[in-house]
């Protein structure tokens, strides 16, 4: 094999000589076409030619730069938690013009995405990256098993290298952790379950001023830390650190324990990074604690110590029952769309990320380098709320079928149900493609909800029509689908009144033990409401400090919508504003659905 390789190199050199001679031929022709036939002039031209031949042959043409180099692009889908470290490195790598063995310049294009949903989309074939780097290996066997079933071969071959490491932890405001006995006491999932079911929330711990216990983790169908959270809850409930089985998941006590923990969740979400940002921006009244990665806490504390955050200190709790690692595996996919050239280029980029300077840099973002030769230095210390000697143990990652079993159990029985009021603009300007895509995407949105979830649909234009009252979907799913499919447009836009009405409805009929959400879709500006924007925001913003208050998500549908007003309405409640159009409305609804 090596001998073959050597011959190839030789061949390349010879052909390179041919190329050079070809170029010289061209130069020769230029020289010949020069005017003047004098003996001297011709002699000079031959001398020039001879000199060039000598120079080229003596120096070896392999060292001469060949213009017009080829480019190879590799695409990478990665868990967003490492964005701060990865993105600047990609820019540097691309600007340095790294080359493959064959001399093609490597170009890396990277997109952040939830670790679970990206795996599912790769299996579906709607996402075709060269490299997949989810937040952890936990879900990789599930993705690989689905791929294997479909294609008859493995998607992930061998053991991929880890890029950077960070344990999954529970981030909690330090005063609250101290109220639980931290740092003297070891804390874990059992403490979270106890807090979640405590009568009066923090009052049971002597701190009535902190209100209810507000907990958060991401959606286990979309994000790695959410999946780890529910697996950890199941292990804690089963009171064992390994060998979680499908039979364990049938135990009513296990289900009750998980449901207890979930009852304190304020909402779910697609991205761990988004959760961390929310918690660190809004403070203890919004969230008491959330599941995230150690690096996000170290980074927040570094910010606070620099004076860039006014929040109280936050600490990492390493659950005593065990946790999991976010290990950011670098997986070059064994998929038909990955060429050998891309594979080679991806290996070069991998070596770059694993090289010492890049590994060392990861520590400044709060990661633990995967290179064992590098120490864990600031901000990985107690001053920054993290303890590099933790965690003491991990939980065993269950088999693929048990992982799927936990997800199903969560979805069907233990997750916190949601009360959703959809407020949909049906004014005259919605005509045509807008109303049809709004109808069909709302039907898809309804399909993303579970039977235990409750739904109310309000249509607004000149008037407000309640298409269906707030009640569980189980009893009306098909009927609501049919009714939504038949909605037609016409009339003015009474946006503020509609939002206010929805808010009042949810206030009156919503279950305080459910996540409560209003989704507003509009394509225009308020033209006819009897109330003003300040009146509306005063009303909906009254309880918004609390993480478990009603959240409003607003969708600006098309360019005519007033995004600023919609943003104001959403953010005052802790919700989010989205821009959309008939092409992307489905994706926006899907993203909103990750909150519950």
């Amino acid at each position: 094999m090596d001998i073959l390789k050597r011959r190839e190199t030789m061949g390349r050199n010879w052909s390179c000589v041919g190329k050079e001679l070809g170029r010289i031929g061209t130069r020769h022709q230029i020289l010949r076409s020069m005017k003047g036939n004098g003996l001297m002039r011709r002699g000079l031209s031959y001398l020039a030619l001879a000199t060039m031949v000598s120079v080229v042959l003596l120096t070896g043409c392999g060292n001469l730069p060949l213009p017009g180099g080829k480019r190879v692009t590799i695409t990478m889908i990665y868990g967003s938690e490492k964005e701060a470290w990865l993105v600047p490195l990609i820019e540097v790598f691309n600007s340095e013009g790294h080359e493959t063995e064959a001399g093609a310049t490597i170009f890396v294009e990277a997109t952040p995405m939830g670790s679970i949903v990206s795996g599912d989309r790769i299996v579906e074939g709607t996402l075709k990256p060269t490299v997949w780097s989810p937040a952890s290996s936990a879900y990789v066997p599930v993705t690989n098993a689905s791929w294997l079933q479909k294609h008859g071969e493995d998607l992930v071959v061998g053991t991929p290298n880890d890029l950077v490491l960070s344990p999954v932890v529970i981030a909690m405001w330090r005063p609250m952790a101290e109220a639980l006995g931290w740092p003297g006491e070891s804390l874990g999932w059992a403490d979270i379950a106890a807090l979640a079911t405590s009568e009066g929330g923090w009052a049971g711990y002597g701190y009535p001023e902190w209100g209810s216990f507000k907990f958060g983790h991401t959606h286990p169908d979309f994000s790695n830390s959410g999946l780890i959270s529910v697996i950890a809850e199941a292990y804690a409930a089963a009171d064992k650190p390994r060998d979680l089985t499908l039979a364990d998941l049938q135990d009513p006590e296990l289900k009750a324990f998980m449901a207890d923990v979930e009852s304190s969740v304020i909402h779910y979400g697609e991205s761990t990074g988004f959760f961390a940002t929310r918690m660190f921006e809004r403070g203890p009244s919004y969230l008491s604690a959330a599941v995230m990665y150690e690096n996000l806490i170290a980074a927040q504390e570094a910010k606070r110590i620099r004076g860039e955050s006014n929040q109280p200190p936050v600490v990492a709790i390493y659950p005593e029952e065990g946790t999991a690692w976010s290990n950011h595996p670098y997986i070059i996919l064994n998929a038909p769309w990955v060429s050998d050239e891309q594979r080679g280029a991806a290996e070069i980029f991998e070596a770059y990320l694993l090289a010492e300077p890049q590994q060392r840099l990861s520590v400044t973002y709060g990661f633990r380098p995967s290179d064992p030769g590098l120490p864990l230095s600031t901000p990985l210390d107690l001053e920054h709320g993290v303890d590099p000697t933790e965690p003491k143990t991990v939980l065993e990652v269950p088999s693929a079928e048990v992982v799927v079993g936990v997800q199903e159990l969560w979805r069907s029985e233990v997750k916190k149900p949601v009360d959703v009021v959809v407020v949909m603009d049906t004014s005259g300007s919605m005509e045509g493609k807008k109303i049809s895509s709004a109808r069909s995407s709302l039907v898809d949105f309804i399909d993303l909800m579970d039977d235990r979830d409750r739904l109310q649909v309000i249509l607004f234009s000149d008037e407000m029509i309640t298409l269906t009252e707030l009640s569980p979907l189980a009893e009306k799913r098909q009927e609501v689908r049919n009714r939504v499919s038949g909605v037609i447009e016409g009339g003015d836009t009474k946006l503020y009144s509609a939002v206010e009405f929805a808010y009042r409805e949810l206030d009156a009929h919503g279950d305080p033990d459910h996540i409560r959400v209003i989704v507003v879709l509009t394509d225009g500006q308020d033209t006819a409401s009897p109330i003003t924007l300040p009146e509306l925001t005063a009303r909906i913003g009254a309880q918004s400090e609390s993480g478990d208050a009603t959240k409003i998500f607003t969708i600006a549908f098309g360019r005519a919508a007033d995004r600023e007003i919609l943003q104001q309405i959403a953010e005052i409640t802790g919700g989010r504003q989205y821009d959309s159009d008939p092409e992307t409305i489905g994706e926006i609804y899907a993203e909103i659905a990750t909150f519950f």
Partner: protein
Amino acid sequence: MFLFAVYALATLGVLVGAFVSPGFRAIAYAPLRDLIIPPPKPIVLDVLYSTEKAAWIDEGVRRFLTSGPRVEGRPIDIELSKSGSREMYLAVLDGDVEPDLISPASMLQISLLEDLSAARTDRFGGPVVDRRDTGTCRPVLNTPVVLVAWENRSDVLWGGNPNGQLWLRLHEAVTRETWEVYGHPEWGFIKFGQTNPLKSNSGFQSFLLMTYNYAEKSSGLSNEDILDAGYQAWYREFGRNVTQFGDSTGTFMEEIVAYGPSRYDIVAVYESTAIEHIDNAVARYGSSHGGLQVIYPPVTSLSDHPFCVLDAEWVEPEEAQAAKRFLDFLTDREMQELALHYGFRPVHEGVSLDQPGSPFGRYEGNGVRLNLPDQVEVPAGNVLNTLLEFWARNVQP
């Protein structure tokens, strides 16, 4: 035309002059230079070796080639290729590779290759290696398989004194599942990792040592010992509870340091691998968990990194001669001194482990010892094969 001829001749003269004069020759374009004055054809040695010694062997090849070695006036060139130890002898047996020199991690693989190639009369005229002929086949580096554990864990299990109880205690601990039994519920389940014996030699060796330990002997392991139902049940139970049977010894060592004790409490690796990482663990965790402790089995098995010249039709006499030259170079004092710095035990008797700067003295506090316990006997190839078959059928995850 006349002038052209003159210039052409002059250019040719410059070229030839350049290729002949040593100063220019070095920077001249090689294929053309070699076309004008062909150098003697080099003897190319194809060497397959196992990865644990990569850093040492790369440096060795560099030094060897720099010394300009020749056989009958022809220069020697070396083509190195990495391979897993088991993969290596299987590829030779199947005819997938035709190396001149092979170096698996241990004599175990040479023993297997010797027996299995003798049986392949269709392909070979007899055994392709002879492990008793030290002229063509001998160890160049030694490193025993050891257990590496966080000190607080090893203290709980062995109290600093594993004696003859090492494997039995490990079996007991791994099959008891959690540290709660030992009064440390906070450490979770007991996490032991070793490599897959079918893929990596260190896993094969610790498997062999456990098997010898069960049979209460250190030589003469037989097929009957392996077929014993009590032994099979005992090992299967252990295998079911091993946290990870990995592919690479190096990866285990890197992970026990990178992740700390949350990932692995104990791993089976080579002494040289352990030595490489002891300081890394200190840099990462200071004295918490007590640092890494190296624990020697009561009777050991050496990864002795034999280099063996193949006795096969594709190995030309000059190649065999060149291979022996290289083997002699590797066992010379200079290369053996270098091996010490990589944490290997030199085979050269003149190189002492107990010298200034030696890692063997430096890591005494971590349990690293100068003197090794006795070794188990390397069983015959067919016995080793039975052992691997049992593993493949009953334990393979």
